[in-house]
């Protein structure tokens, strides 16, 4: 077996375009997923049953089925309603729906991590539910939320490689394109794996820095922690 660098020299624009698509899909899915995830988390935390259980069912269904099956279902379901969308859009929707369930659990866990007495004290001085969430819970839940969201986002980035199966032209698809052109499997997959690794490491390190900045003096010394990537896909 030999590693042919000239293959990479010839095909690098394909990888760059794939990486760009992966980043685009993941960022859009992150934004949409965070919005939907916050709504789902708030619904699960609410005391009204009709808000609580649909949110719980949503989270369980997404978490207990493979992302590949979800992606296929959305890809084939939308045309049934005469919604014709490009694969990339369907992929981003699937990824956002998947991310929302994961983010919702992170957000809910973060809210619950804040001591109960804090919310009760806010209630006692007459703050409304929303004001309590904004002024009391939100600032305190960040130390829990950021590492947890980082893991979920890394999971999302890795899961996005599955979108190549529904023909989204992202990074994993780039390896198939290069493979089809050059038959250089080792080179193609190594490059793609290295790019994904760089991407997840960058997220891990970047979010670690954000975490330290937000946590301020409370943070214990764990400078090496960002190098340990945590997010589990599926």
């Amino acid at each position: 077996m030999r590693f042919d660098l000239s293959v990479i020299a010839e095909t690098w624009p394909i990888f760059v375009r794939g990486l760009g698509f992966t980043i685009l899909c993941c960022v859009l899915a992150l934004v949409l997923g965070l919005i939907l995830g916050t709504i789902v988390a708030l619904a699960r935390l609410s005391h009204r049953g009709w808000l609580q259980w649909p949110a719980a069912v949503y989270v369980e269904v997404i978490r207990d089925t493979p992302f590949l099956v979800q992606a296929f279902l959305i890809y084939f379901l939308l045309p049934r309603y005469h919604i014709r969308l490009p694969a990339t859009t369907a992929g981003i929707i699937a990824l956002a729906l998947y991310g929302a369930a994961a983010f919702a659990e992170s957000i809910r866990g973060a809210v619950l991590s804040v001591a109960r007495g804090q919310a009760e004290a806010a209630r006692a001085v007459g703050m409304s539910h929303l004001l309590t969430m904004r002024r009391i819970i939100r600032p305190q839940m960040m130390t829990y939320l950021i590492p947890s969201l980082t893991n979920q986002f890394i999971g999302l980035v890795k899961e996005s490689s599955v979108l190549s199966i529904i023909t989204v032209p992202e990074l994993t698809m780039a390896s198939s394109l290069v493979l089809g052109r050059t038959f250089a499997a080792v080179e193609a997959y190594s490059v793609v794996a290295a790019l994904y690794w760089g991407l997840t490491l960058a997220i891990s390190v970047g979010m670690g820095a954000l975490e330290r900045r937000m946590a301020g003096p409370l943070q214990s010394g764990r400078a090496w922690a960002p190098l340990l990537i945590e997010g589990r896909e599926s």
Partner: protein
Amino acid sequence: MNLDFRYALQALPLLLQGALVTLETSLLAVVLGIAVGIALTLLGQAPIRPVRWACQLYISVMRGTPLFIQILMVYYVLPGVGLDIPRFVAGVVALSLNSGAYVTEILRGGLSMIPRGQVDAGRSVGMPRALIWRHVLLPQTIALVLPPLTVEFTSLLKASALLSVIAVIELTRTAQQIIAATFRPVELWLATGALYFVMCSALGGTARWLERRAAVHRA
């Protein structure tokens, strides 16, 4: 939109067969993954520094890259170096190699929860290392790691759907084949998703039960 589940119902025996393969594959992968995890945990404490570095690099790469790429890599690269293995084996190998990187963390977490004083106590009454492991550390660690390992099994069960891409005839691949014959994708993906859901939530329930039991034993 009208759903017609007749084909999905007709295909149910085939889907169940596929689900059985999915269960077998992920069970095999979780067992081998635990073996990989134990090996990594032991090597990660080796007195030789490059060995520890290699372990950390392995864990970081396995967790930092998509499982899908790892599966493709094992499937396409191994034949290139002269190892001609069947797809099922390639799939299980890829899943276990990936899972091992997550199992190490579970094992580390379990071991770190046992107070160090227990080892010291064992040593002070003259217990040899092997005996301390057998009677003090292992029984407690196993109770602690069993629930997260069950969750890992659930993750692998879902992840094994990716083996459909290298044509392992598990649940997802079976569904694809039936869809190719009947062209009822929505109904069949719903049925397939339901089967995954039943398997995963049953395992999730088992994990929660094990957790409650472990908590009772500790109390």
